[in-house]
């Protein structure tokens, strides 16, 4: 059994450690490239969203490396995601790959079902081992996300652009190599210190932009042309609430127990959208409402034809909490120049708005 799981941001780092410690053969998917995307686009139905196309591309590339057990996260609901595993399974089998597709969803399998899948994937390792290994991987994710949060701040104010990104890359490598909790801790503190020591502009008061939108395109830099780094280059501090470490913690363990970290966001969205419409549409609206005083603007990322995000996009301009929102639709037709131009215009607009004073009546149309 060779296991393969598609890319979602840097998820491959903890997964690699997880399966290595459990002695399971795991194939790290090759990094997302144009080839991955074209493979995905070629074999997908045209109307599907970029998460489907990219993950299908990943699956094909993993299958080429000999993986035979593919895991697709996604649970049943109103979003199409719950059906992706089935469709991708069919497409891959039609292409002649001899694979088994496992769908890992929280809402219908519940905690017990999930644990059974994990146990099976882990070659029936003891629960003690699985839990201790998982804790270690969770630590890796936490370290990654702690460093990334700092990187988002440093990118905006660093004197020499690109330093933070370079350090982040090294940090990811180091986290990937760290083999026990102590090294991991050292790596974390070391890199946090390095980031703190990066030469920064002391007078900078960077604009703060929140990133919200569909989970996959927010977390996978390849699908959004690494929008966070680009904003950083423009001197903007990026904030987002979606992080892998929190998502895994909540969706794997706390949500099945009835604890939901997003209640606060949902409550904020309630006056404008009363129901969970699937995907992350509810959260997108909630975040706009919740952070309207904290942020200067919001970049809303959505895959093309994403149903929940289209609803969110339609409702967002009508909220009483007024804050500029730039919706960027991600798909295979997107170009870097197009995104950059729109980002520059947006950032200019935010700068003007700030200069004019937050309380001014300056009318801004986005």
């Amino acid at each position: 059994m060779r296991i393969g799981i598609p890319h979602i941001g840097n998820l491959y780092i903890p997964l690699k450690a997880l399966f290595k410690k459990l002695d399971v053969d795991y194939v790290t998917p090759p990094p997302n490239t144009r080839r991955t995307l074209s493979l995905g686009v070629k074999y997908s139905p045209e109307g599907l969203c970029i998460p489907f196309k990219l993950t299908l591309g990943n699956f094909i590339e993993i299958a080429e490396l000999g993986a035979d057990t593919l895991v697709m996260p996604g649970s049943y609901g109103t979003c199409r995601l719950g059906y992706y595993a089935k469709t991708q399974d069919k497409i891959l089998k039609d292409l002649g790959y001899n694979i088994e597709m496992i769908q890992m969803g929280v809402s219908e399998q519940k905690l017990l079902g999930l644990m059974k899948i994990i146990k099976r994937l882990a070659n029936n390792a003891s629960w003690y081992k699985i839990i201790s290994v998982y804790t270690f991987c969770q630590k890796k994710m936490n370290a990654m996300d702690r460093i990334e949060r700092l990187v988002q701040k440093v990118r905006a104010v660093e004197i020499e652009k690109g330093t933070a990104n370079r350090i982040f890359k090294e940090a990811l490598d180091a986290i990937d190599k760290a083999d026990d909790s102590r090294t991991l801790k050292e790596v974390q503190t070391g890199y946090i210190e390095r980031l703190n020591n990066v030469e920064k502009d002391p007078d900078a008061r960077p604009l703060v932009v929140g990133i919200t939108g569909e989970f996959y395109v927010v977390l996978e830099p390849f699908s959004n042309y690494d929008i966070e780094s680009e904003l950083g280059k423009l001197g903007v501090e990026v904030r987002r609430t979606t992080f892998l470490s929190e998502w895994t913690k909540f969706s794997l363990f706390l949500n099945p127990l009835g604890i939901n970290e997003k209640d606060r966001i949902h409550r904020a969205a309630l006056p404008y959208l009363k129901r969970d419409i699937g995907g992350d549409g509810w959260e997108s609206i909630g975040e706009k409402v919740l952070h309207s005083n904290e942020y200067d603007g919001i970049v809303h990322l959505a895959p093309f034809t994403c149903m929940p995000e289209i609803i969110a996009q339609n409702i967002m301009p009508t909220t009483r909490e007024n804050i500029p929102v730039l919706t960027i639709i991600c798909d295979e037709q997107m170009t870097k120049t197009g995104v950059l131009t729109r980002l520059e215009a947006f950032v200019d607009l935010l700068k003007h708005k700030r200069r004019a004073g937050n309380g001014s009546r300056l009318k801004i149309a986005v």
Partner: protein
Amino acid sequence: MRVGIPRALLYYQYYPAWKTFFEELGAEVVVSPPTTQAMLAEGSARVVADTCLPVKVFLGHVLSLVDKCDRIFIPAVRSVEKKVYNCSKFLGLPDMTKAVIPEAPPLLEVDIDVNEGKSRLYQSIYAMGRSINWNPFKVRQAGLAAWQAYLDYRELMSGSKLTPPEALAGMYGTAEKEPEVTRTGPARVKGTVALIGHPYLIYDEYINHRLIRRLEQSGNRIVTPEMVATPELKSAIAEITGGAYWTYEEEVVGAGGHYLQSGADGVIGIMAFGCGPDSLMMDMVRRHSVGLGSTPFMCLTLEEHTAEAGVVTRLEAFTDMIYRRKKKDRAVCV
């Protein structure tokens, strides 16, 4: 009180039930006129470009009702079958309408979600009914009458092989009818074409460029998903997808599977551009048809720019192929 019902989306599936419910409660029901170019244009102007065609049409219908009624009925249908859901657009519809059409009269919203349990469902219906009539017994009666009307309607369609517009015309007289639909049928039937797709695409004559009439005039018999009985639908669904995921799409897939095997010379799938569920489901049907290799399948994608000539050309080519294939009775690749 006048309750407005937009002639779009779920109208074709549930209109008799809705009409009965509101009339039993003593309200007057106003239905928007059939879709026109102006309605679609006005609806499209309110939303972002990515929004799918049926929703734009729906908003156009809501706009046409704005001054004509005191309340507009927009249900949020999440699930009508356990563990089987609907597209997010049905769920977000009331809130989205409120956001993009602020001048609309107050909405009558009802949450339909069978996963939440019967009592929640009844409560939701009661809450809506009570806003029209204070008497809870009246609401109960209206609910039961509506359910019966719905069952009769389904029975009428599958029993007499009628399409929803025909069934509605039969139930409520010619008021529902559009200018003269002749169902005497062509003199000589050259072929049977199955149309699969959502009712709001197949029966909205404006957005599909009078597809049914065109096909009938050129000598084809038309069969639609409503004419397939439930057991056949279920078995076809199980064969193609292995289990239901979306309610309304399953009907389409099941009918597609059924007609690909029997009862039609050709199957035409109709979907709206950017439709989330259909982009998956039509592909499932297409894959299935390739596997079977027995009945030709074509998928027509509709959007507000679809040129009539383009649709006509593809229809003609498709039907010509069916006739030729029938005559020579040999396999033709599509």
